[in-house]
């Protein structure tokens, strides 16, 4: 018997995907903020990729200055509420909290951050305004964490900004790729609307950049172009039977889940291939959609999983079973997926070796490949002179984010190869400042 019944109504969906970091009420925020020690040179700030002055905003919450708290957060990171909810705070700010040194519960920084920013979002009270116009125009490709952060920063510096987004909604993976129990669509989109209302950039939705002509239009119409394109679809496994119905990529599965909620189909027996955070998410989500049996299969040992420990714990907590040192050989079935043939593996000298003769079949009716997102090489090759490193990441100046095509700048997953929302938000802000310097000084 599965732990979760398949949700048939939105309230049931919300229950199955209950928020991991629910919104604090004012009393809870008051109590939690009271615990903050106000450390000197606080480790939480040091471990925040966007460098938010955490003790300051917590102190502002504690003294009833919610607007000031929100401002402190947004000054460092435009994805304030999003990061409060989706950041792996356990390994970032909360992981660095000195309370851990005493085996005490760290301050719930993420939830406090969301408490303050949601208050600002709900009030609609503007905290920022566009800078005095510079006459410069910037095109931003991608309305994800990098693109929107860059747009906000560029607007605050006075540049006109148009954002071009391939999909229908902003915030990128926040609304398309993050597990629904981390943030709801409404919340993610509310923060985007709040930002846009303050900074006044324009977003063109359903406008994918598909060819050289599309880019030339931007190159001719704008003084600089910011690449916030993130990563692409799930990497192909190149296994026999991968094209069978019921074998899907995790990125695509989660996008369907975020957009369709109840219309998302899930198997009764699901095999998730991969050992990263996305694999844990996909497994967890399958269970919450009512799958009776969910197996997470990883080709290395448990200790080598890329997923954070708490992410795997979360999946285990909803009944997901881990299967380690196994590699998929073939997706079995007749039109539709009926099972996965695995072979056992052993890791010697860091290399995965298959164990001959150890093959076995795990029956299932759905396979989710959580084997990483592909780089957008095809698109990036459309940009003249743009160089990528050996891993397909954009090469850019460390300080300004300028790529090897001087008109293009980059930040986020396309630059760092795939990291957290907070990394993209922080990098994009810094890149936007680099762009500003170059736009003002002249190329």
């Amino acid at each position, binding site marked *: 018997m599965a732990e979760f019944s398949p949700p048939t109504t939105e309230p049931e969906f919300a229950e199955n995907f209950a928020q991991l970091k629910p919104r604090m009420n004012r009393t809870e925020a008051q109590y939690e*903020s*009271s615990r903050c020690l*106000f450390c000197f040179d606080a480790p939480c700030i040091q471990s*925040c990729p966007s460098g938010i002055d955490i003790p300051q905003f917590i102190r502002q919450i504690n003294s009833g200055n919610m607007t000031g708290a929100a401002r402190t957060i947004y000054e460092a990171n435009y994805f304030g509420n999003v990061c409060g909810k989706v950041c792996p705070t356990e390994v970032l700010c909360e992981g660095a909290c000195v309370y851990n040194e*005493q085996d005490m519960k760290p301050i719930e920084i993420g939830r406090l951050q969301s408490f303050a920013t949601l208050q600002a979002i709900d009030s609609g009270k503007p905290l920022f305004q566009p800078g005095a116009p510079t006459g410069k125009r910037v095109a931003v490709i991608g309305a994800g964490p990098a693109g929107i952060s860059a747009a906000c920063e560029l607007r605050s510096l006075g540049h006109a900004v148009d954002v071009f987004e391939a999909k229908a909604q902003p915030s990128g993976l926040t609304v398309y790729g993050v597990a629904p129990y981390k943030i709801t669509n409404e919340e993610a989109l509310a923060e985007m609307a709040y930002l846009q209302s303050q900074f006044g950039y324009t977003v063109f939705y359903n406008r994918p950049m598909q060819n050289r002509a599309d880019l030339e239009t931007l190159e001719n119409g704008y003084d600089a172009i910011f690449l916030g394109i993130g990563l692409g679809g799930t990497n192909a496994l190149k296994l026999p039977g991968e094209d069978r119905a019921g074998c899907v990529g995790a990125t695509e599965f989660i996008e369907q889940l975020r957009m369709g909620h109840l219309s998302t189909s899930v198997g009764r027996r699901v095999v998730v291939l991969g050992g990263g955070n996305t694999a844990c998410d996909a497994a967890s989500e399958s269970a919450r959609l009512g799958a009776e049996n969910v197996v997470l299969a990883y080709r290395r040992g448990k200790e080598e999983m890329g997923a954070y420990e708490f992410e795997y714990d979360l999946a285990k907590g909803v009944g997901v079973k881990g299967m380690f040192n196994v590699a998929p050989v073939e997706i079995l079935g007749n039109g539709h997926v009926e099972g996965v043939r695995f072979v056992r593996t052993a890791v010697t000298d860091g290399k995965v070796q298959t164990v001959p003769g150890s093959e076995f079949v795990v029956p299932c009716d759905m396979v989710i490949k959580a084997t990483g997102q592909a780089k957008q090489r095809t698109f990036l090759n459309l940009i003249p002179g743009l160089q990528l490193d050996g891993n397909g990441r954009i090469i850019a100046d460390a300080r300004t984010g300028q790529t090897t095509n001087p008109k293009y700048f980059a930040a986020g997953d396309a630059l760092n190869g795939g990291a957290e929302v907070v990394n993209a938000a922080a990098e994009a802000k810094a890149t936007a*400042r680099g762009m500003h310097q170059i736009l003002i000084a002249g190329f």
Partner: protein
Amino acid sequence: MPDLSINFAGIKSPNPFWLASAPPTNSGYQIMKAFDAGWGGAVWKTLGVPVVNVSSRYGATNYRDKRMVGFNNIELISDRPLADNLREISEVKKRFPNHAVIASLMVESRAQWHEIVRAAEDAGADGLELNFGCPHGMCERGMGSAVGQEPAVLQRIVEWVMEVAKTPVIVKLTPNISDITEPALAARRGGANAISLINTIQSIVGVDLDLFAPYPIVDGKGSNGGYCGPAVKPIALNMVKNCAQHPDVRLPISGIGGIENWRDAVEHILLGASSVQVCTAAMHFGFGIVREMITGLEQYMTEKGFQNIDQMVGRALPNVKHWEDLNLKYKVTANIHAEKCIGCQLCYTACEDGAHQAIRLNAGTRVPEIIDENCVGCNLCSLVCPVEDCITMDRRDDGTQHLTWKERTEAGDVPTEFNDEKAGGRHHWVPEPSAALGKERHKTLPGKARVLRGETNPN
């Protein structure tokens, strides 16, 4: 088992825990409930000519997540007819003959005092407490603290009371005065049998930032009230000590002010109180708190070998000295126990900004280091440290030398000129003023997000 019973100036009580005259003692119902819960005595809500109260009567000082660290009220004395109160006093005494019921009184004329003293005693009160302390509402009418602040008036009224009183008379003192021993001495001269202190401190507990009015707000306005609760304990302890140490007061003291657990009660007792009175804590948590107070006191007495309360009364008084009698040769310095340190560095910033720059940070570790030669032994770091016993103040002198300010003065060995060589800080290292600018300043000041990618301000 230690004996918790007391005989306070002739008023007997099964334990030293009394409810102070206040809202919790407004009725026989409350007092019976309190006695049933374990309270040893109760001072009835002040009797007099009944008053009319306002709605919205209390305000609180909250500190961070702690509610009612301080508390104030603008409520007056009993608003119930005297006859009702007297009838209930009789009823309580009948049901609880061994518990102490003390009638708090506040009236104006000699005749009224005589009348109410007789009435209270006839009703069965074990003693009387004269309310010369209330700092709001009644004092404007020439009663309460208006009496407590005028030793001559206080003495005269005590004399009126003593003309007719047959039971022990306690004078309750107001702290709204520069020297608490003056009214205490006046009470003694008037013939009182005991004193109780402190009454509430005149206060404004807070201001509403939107309505521009003080709390508690009555139809957009407010008034000064009387402050009490945990926040006032240090003031109460000092005043209890002053009365207990004064050679001419020599009256039993009922300690009041910030008592909410056994520890607070013991502190009052060690400084000279022989009964204690509680109000705010009972208003906050209910009468049930007395169980913890009784068991805590019993445990403490057992561990210390005290058989009865009298053995404890004033035990700390010999160690409360004038500053000039303290040993200048005593020397402690801070010691950070690195294995306990969690690296918050509150000690560092406190010492840097608030004390003597005697703590440094070293690269590669979050554990700060004490600069022994700069440490004056002020305790600040050990007070701000959030970890139990992580910073201890360790004795550095060998304990053989003793020299006080008084002795140095008598020996002519004290600084007397503005730039005297004998100045205590003369040879103490302090950094150059300009050293304050730069170094870690920017990462330390609040409101400064970490600089990313080594960039400078783009504007």
